[in-house]
């Protein structure tokens, strides 16, 4: 899995407000970056910019390899049972054996439950299962641990570590500490733009 994700001199804004500027980093295969910062400092905006869903205000994003994104919106149809909602993404991704991800994340008993009845943590795990089934090298995870119980936090952390250990790349925005070996940290506040700087 060859992967490369880097940003150089990146600046992003939301509305008229400049969130951060001069942000640069480089991530290669087998590397993980923990993105921290208070609410509203631009973690989600940065992740969406890296995923090329929005364009940066200034600077450049370089991506080599396919990107998988997990955020608070899991793109699972709320009225469908979880199994059917997930099977749409399995068909799109051409995934032939989804059972492994489902059993690892303990989703098998929930396959008949409509997505709208699932809890936040269960939905998050379902989103992660969809991400696992894609088998992409770069993971962008926006608050992957929020809403998870203690056991699930351990499990998801282990999955991220496994992905990175296997040559993958991960960028994780989280308020919780992450027990992943060799994890680098990036505090987005270090690049915060002052109000008068625009």
């Amino acid at each position: 899995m060859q992967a490369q994700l880097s940003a150089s001199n990146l600046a992003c804004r939301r509305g008229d407000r400049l969130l951060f500027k001069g942000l640069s980093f480089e991530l290669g295969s087998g590397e993980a970056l923990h993105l921290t910062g208070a609410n509203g400092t631009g973690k989600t905006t940065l992740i969406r910019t890296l995923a090329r869903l929005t364009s940066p205000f200034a600077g450049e994003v370089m991506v080599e390899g396919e990107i998988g994104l997990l955020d608070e919106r899991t793109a699972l149809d709320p009225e469908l049972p979880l199994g059917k909602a997930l099977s749409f993404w399995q068909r799109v991704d051409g995934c032939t054996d989804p059972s492994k991800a489902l059993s690892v994340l303990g989703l098998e008993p929930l396959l008949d439950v409509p997505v709208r009845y699932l809890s936040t943590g269960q939905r998050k795990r379902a989103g992660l299962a969809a991400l696992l089934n894609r088998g992409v090298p770069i993971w962008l995870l926006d608050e992957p641990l929020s809403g998870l119980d203690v056991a699930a936090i351990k499990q998801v952390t282990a999955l991220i570590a496994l992905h990175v250990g296997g040559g993958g790349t991960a960028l994780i925005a989280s308020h919780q500490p992450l027990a992943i070996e060799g994890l680098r940290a990036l505090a987005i506040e270090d690049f915060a733009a002052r109000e008068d700087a625009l």
Partner: protein
Amino acid sequence: MIGSMLRRDLSKFFPFAGGGAALPVVFFVAVAMLYPFAVGPDVNLLARTGGGVVWIAALLAAILPLEKLVAQDIELGTFDQLKLRGATEELMMAVRLIAHWLSFGPPLILATFPAAALLALDGPTVQLLVLGLLAGTPGLAAIGLMIAALTASLRAGAALSGLLLIPLALPILIFGSGALARSDAASIGFVAAISLLLVALAPFAAGAAIRAAREV
């Protein structure tokens, strides 16, 4: 990928497949049913004006599915995830347009027959009506998709989309019901031309709209 997208869209929007997707068709027949009650049972009057009523009912029915057509998938993040998998917004909107028309056009055309019976329309009129709707509903679906994509990120989107669709659908209505007034199939050609233009335009306009909605 396109096949699975179309399958998902159809299962979301096709009447009786789930949700409230059958409502536009039921609404369409209900309007046609209401009209004789309002103007009285005069067969000649009904036969003369009934075709126009069917067109207006079709136009109103086109407004109903718009609220869910695009906004829900923006909210769910479906379009974002498809984009990450390499699909362009134009492709997503083209697929959505096909699914929207399939779940709205043909059922409406089928429902025209009971509606025509209720309005005492004669054979040639029904024929012109069905031909006109066949040519016009893709255009209505295209207008609807563009409006749904444009208003998806607005709070008052649902009310606004109805207001926007009516003037934009006017050319289709004029030529479509004009064919009935003059018993002349030629103006259906105009309806088809307008529809074709709108269908060609819609994926690009709607795609640009959902791309713009991302950049807040």
